[in-house]
């Protein structure tokens, strides 16, 4: 079962849910972030975060501490905190980058966040008590191009970054002032700040921007989606084995783990797909929606049929896609449950809709659904 939330005709470039899932922050391809709260089946606008000068590229709402971080093409990021008068107060973050910020994500413990940018830098930002502000440390080497996507490892230290230089890298973002030294993981034991733990190339044939990266729920596997229509999974526990699936579909733009061994990915195909990760290969699961080919509306007379054939070259004018989303999906976010045990997830798309997908009811409805 899917619930469709319509927010107009403007594309929704990014979105994020509040911790209690009653509020939603989204940006409609502009420099503003609008906050909505659900009242029954309707959405009421409860806030407007309009401090950015240029397009907002990414939003993340920390569930436990209730802080929102937004980053934008204007090279800035702001942290927004709700004060006692129910007004969102902003704090500028000193990213020290000279290009657009492309993506931002809070760490699992919400004491740091990472911002990827076109300056080939990842800024790890934390709150400095003496200065009473957000300062950043840079991770520079060896990135050669824009960072497109970021995901945190559950241990709050390691981050994965996908980039337009066709590589996925795992870095350590250990900040001495904020946290204790981490214990060794499958990715390595030495973890100084900015240390490159592992680097993966997207394709042996050399190409394909990396659109999305995601650690598995236990952090031992790393999945990424490349523009060469592929989904790859690297297994750190299995000697860094990289399993790549070259799909027959259009490229995916966003992905997440819905079960310990199942990935949900969505992108230019306008419908989410599931991928099953086995011990040595990734396999395509199924689409999460059936191609609803509507029966043609009955009473087309013979004359209309031939008129259409002559004018349009086909039987009837088909402009609508047979899926819920009409344009490519920009982002997938988990709504109910957590990574690895997801009940519901949402997709935002360039057609102005946010669709919430309920896995339990979908599994009941669609016989072919493989999770």
């Amino acid at each position, binding site marked *: 079962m899917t619930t469709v939330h319509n927010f107009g005709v403007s594309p929704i470039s990014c979105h994020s849910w509040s911790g209690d899932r009653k509020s939603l922050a989204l940006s409609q391809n502009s420099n503003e972030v609008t906050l909505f709260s659900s009242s029954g089946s309707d959405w009421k606008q409860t806030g407007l975060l309009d401090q950015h000068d240029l397009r907002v590229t990414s939003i993340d709402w920390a569930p436990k501490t209730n802080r929102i971080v937004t980053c934008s093409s204007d090279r800035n990021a702001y942290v927004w905190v709700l004060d006692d008068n129910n007004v969102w107060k902003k704090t500028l973050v000193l990213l020290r980058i000279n290009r657009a910020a492309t993506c931002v994500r809070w760490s699992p413990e919400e004491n740091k966040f990472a911002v990827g940018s076109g300056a080939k830098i990842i800024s790890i930002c934390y709150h400095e008590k003496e200065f009473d502000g957000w300062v950043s440390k840079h991770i520079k080497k060896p990135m050669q191009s824009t960072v497109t996507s970021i995901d945190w490892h559950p241990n709050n230290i390691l981050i994965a970054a996908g980039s337009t230089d066709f590589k996925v890298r795992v870095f350590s973002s250990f900040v001495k002032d904020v946290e204790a030294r981490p214990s060794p993981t499958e990715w390595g034991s030495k973890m100084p700040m900015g240390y490159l733990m592992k680097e993966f190339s997207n394709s042996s044939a050399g190409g394909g921007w990396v659109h999305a990266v995601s650690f598995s729920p236990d952090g031992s596997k790393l999945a990424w989606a490349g523009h060469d*229509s592929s989904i790859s999974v690297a297994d750190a526990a299995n000697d860094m084995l990289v399993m790549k699936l*070259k799909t027959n579909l259009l490229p995916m733009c966003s992905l997440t783990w819905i079960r310990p061994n199942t990935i949900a990915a969505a992108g230019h195909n306008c419908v989410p797909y599931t991928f099953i990760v086995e011990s040595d290969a990734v396999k395509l699961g199924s689409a999460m929606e059936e191609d609803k080919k509507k029966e043609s509306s009955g009473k087309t007379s013979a004359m209309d049929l031939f008129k259409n054939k002559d004018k349009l070259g086909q039987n009837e004018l088909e402009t609508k896609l047979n899926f819920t989303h009409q344009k490519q999906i920009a982002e997938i976010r988990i709504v109910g449950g957590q990574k690895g045990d997801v009940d519901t997830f949402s997709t935002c798309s360039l057609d102005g809709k946010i669709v919430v997908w309920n896995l339990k009811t979908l599994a009941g409805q669609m016989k072919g659904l493989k999770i």
Partner: protein
Amino acid sequence: MAKNTSSNVFRTLDVDQYNEDNYKEDNDSTDPAALGPNDTLITSLLAANKPVEALTHLLSGATLGIKDQAARTASLTLAMRVLMAIKASQIDDAVAQLDNENRDVLMKFIYRGFEVPNEGSSAHLLVWHEKVFTVSGVGSIVRVLTDKKRV
């Protein structure tokens, strides 16, 4: 007015190469000795009227990312000969026998073949394109566009 206002020579200078922050390609030097598919083997298979086998050999042997233009043109001419030799009715079987990697390489050859049309070649290539597309979908076409190592 500056003395060299009329001179456009500066426009021919590539300033970007001096920028130390440039993106440097991964230099996996393809071993020049391991050049493309075995020319003689494939020609003999074609002569022996076994074009489908020739196709399998051609695709498995094709190396991507060769820098030498002459070698690339030679391998393209060879590929075109094989593709033209296989009749339209045999294409279905030929495509079904290939694995996914080889189908991607085949799609790359098809698009390169479109770039240099000979008489009647494009029509036949269109049939090839349609048959490969039904099996490999849009993914293989996306890979023709995104893979940096061209065939």
